[in-house]
């Protein structure tokens, strides 16, 4: 057997004996502390990841779906959007499409008014790409043949506890009539058919009318400002882009993240916060393990002296303490994951945190769990090394018979 193998074997044997036959209460307490250190590291990250995920989902579900097809730069509208839809609708993974007009307009109610975006949609198509039809808090969603009817987000309506209440219309209810002034100068009165709340401030600032109604306002036919495309998975929209081009779609094709500037800003800020809280978390975890191992080495100082006296190498002893610390950290990570998945995640699914981007639950990303586990284990190894290395630096006589 090589000397390194022998040393590893003896170190592992000592570590195993110290853990398995040592004080069980101390072992359990140490693992609990490690688990809490791990939860501390994971919790903030999971909240931030949950917020990012919630925002992404809102952008997809209530604003842009997965892919947006837009007119080329020099064009205002996509001509004959049905022909574009026909090219892509049978691509595997494409669930639905919604060709729509988007225009700015001023909406007025009594003395109050404001400028918002109005989307004009085919209600049946829209149901395939958006969750807004399912988020009505008053009245109902549009029907295919509705004319002079509008649905508005709660930030426009007002009176529903929106975040920008002072810019709203101040309390419009279903059945009220609002006046809409379009950018081409057309003014029309619309009956409010429904009010929706997506829990996302950006989509709550939208209003919807039917496509046919908008075509009568704009005086155009069979065109679209954009086509939203819903796909079956999130995150791999890139694979559709080339396919669409190959199928003869010559318009601009963009995946949802291009429009999700808010997500990028949030992610950047969360990454910075994550790095800061992570560094502090690792430091706290490292100090905790250091204290635990330090107390252990102090109480085993004489034992370490005896081991050295009988010819056990310092490196074997130090490594046995590193193994112990790593064992505590690994168990702590596992226990921490159990706490996260069995207690905290179900709790926040039941009682989500309410943020402007919607209801947020904890999101445990595999990458975050692996990096934090690895970080905690490395911190533990260092924290196990330092006090034991320090302890074997003193003379054997001081270790066995010193004060």
């Amino acid at each position: 057997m090589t000397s390194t193998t022998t040393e590893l074997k003896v170190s592992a044997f000592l570590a195993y004996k110290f853990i398995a036959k040592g004080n069980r209460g101390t072992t359990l307490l140490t693992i609990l502390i490690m688990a809490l250190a791990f939860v501390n590291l994971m919790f903030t990250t999971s909240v931030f990841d949950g917020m990012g995920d919630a925002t992404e989902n809102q952008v997809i579900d209530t604003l842009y779906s997965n892919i947006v097809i837009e007119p080329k730069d020099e064009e205002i509208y996509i001509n004959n959007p049905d022909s574009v839809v026909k090219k892509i609708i049978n691509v595997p993974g494409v669930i639905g499409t919604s060709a729509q007009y988007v225009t700015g307009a001023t909406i007025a109610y009594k003395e109050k008014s404001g400028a918002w975006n109005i989307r004009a949609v085919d209600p049946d198509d829209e149901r395939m790409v958006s969750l807004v039809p399912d988020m009505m808090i008053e009245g109902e969603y549009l029907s295919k043949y509705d004319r002079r009817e509008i649905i508005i987000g709660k930030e426009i309506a007002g009176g529903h506890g929106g975040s920008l209440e002072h810019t709203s219309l101040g309390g419009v209810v279903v059945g009220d009539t609002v006046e809409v002034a379009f950018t081409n100068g057309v003014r029309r009165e619309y009956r409010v058919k429904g009010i929706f709340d997506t829990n996302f401030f950006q989509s709550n600032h939208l209003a919807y009318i039917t496509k046919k109604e908008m075509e009568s306002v704009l005086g155009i036919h069979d065109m679209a400002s954009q086509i939203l495309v819903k796909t079956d998975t999130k995150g791999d929209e890139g694979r559709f882009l080339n396919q669409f081009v190959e199928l003869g779609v010559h318009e601009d094709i963009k995946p949802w993240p291009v429009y999700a500037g808010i997500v990028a800003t949030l992610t950047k800020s969360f990454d910075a916060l994550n790095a800061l809280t992570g560094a502090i978390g690792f430091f706290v975890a490292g100090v905790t393990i250091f204290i635990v191992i330090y107390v252990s080495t102090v109480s085993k100082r004489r034992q370490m002296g005896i081991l050295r006296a009988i010819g056990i190498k310092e490196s074997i002893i130090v490594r046995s303490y590193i193994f112990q610390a790593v064992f505590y950290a690994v168990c702590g990570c596992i226990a921490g994951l159990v706490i996260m998945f069995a207690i905290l995640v179900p709790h926040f699914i039941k009682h989500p945190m309410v943020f402007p981007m919607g209801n947020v639950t904890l999101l445990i990303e595999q990458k975050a769990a692996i990096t934090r586990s690895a970080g905690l284990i490395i911190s533990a190894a260092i924290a196990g090394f330092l006090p034991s290395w320090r302890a074997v630096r003193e003379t054997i006589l001081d270790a066995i018979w010193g004060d």
Partner: protein
Amino acid sequence: MMERTERVEQVERDEQDTIIATRNLSRTYTMGKMQMTALNRVTLDVRRGEFAAIMGKSGSGKSTLLHQLGLLDTPTEGEIVIDEVEISGLSESEKTIFRLEKFGYVFQEYAILPEMTALENVYLPAMALGLSREEYVTKGMDALEKVGLAERADHRPREMSGGEQQRVAIARALINKPKILFADEPTANLDSASSRQILELFRALNRDIGQTILMVTHELEDADIVDRVIWLADGEVVDREG
């Protein structure tokens, strides 16, 4: 001429028989501005197979001498040759291996690990030498057999008496077949019956397998059981206790 040749051969035989030799060995401790000499120019030889006791009054330097010879401490001056190896030339890690391969220790306190069984305590040094599991378990059982504790192999220290724990420590000291067994007041914490048992065990090991034993003791009656007493007074070797 013939007479001279016999004398030279005798000297060479004596040198080969000598397992420990010290020359002008001193150990001085610095305590603040004070210098305290614990050993002063000690010169002595211990023969292979000898059972020697180091005796003297408290503070005479008995344990300090044992620590220097057992490589647990480093002398301030002087020379130590053990098994024909000049010790001052060894690095700390070489001393560790030297201790593992050539020495066995029995301390006043039982000094066995409470987390391990008697057998595990005993075979740990053999395991550290890189033997296979089968080898170190067999050697561990043999060592426990020698000290009469084979049937207690799976017991942990807390389940054993002080005398039994000390015998486990002796078995651990014997496992790597050490050249020298160092014992630092091995009976100080034991009742008289257990003390007697330990000393008889030392005597038997010395008689049956020729084990070299160097033992520090403050019990005068222990002088009767050893081959030789090295008397110390004020850090110096003297003819008899002063």
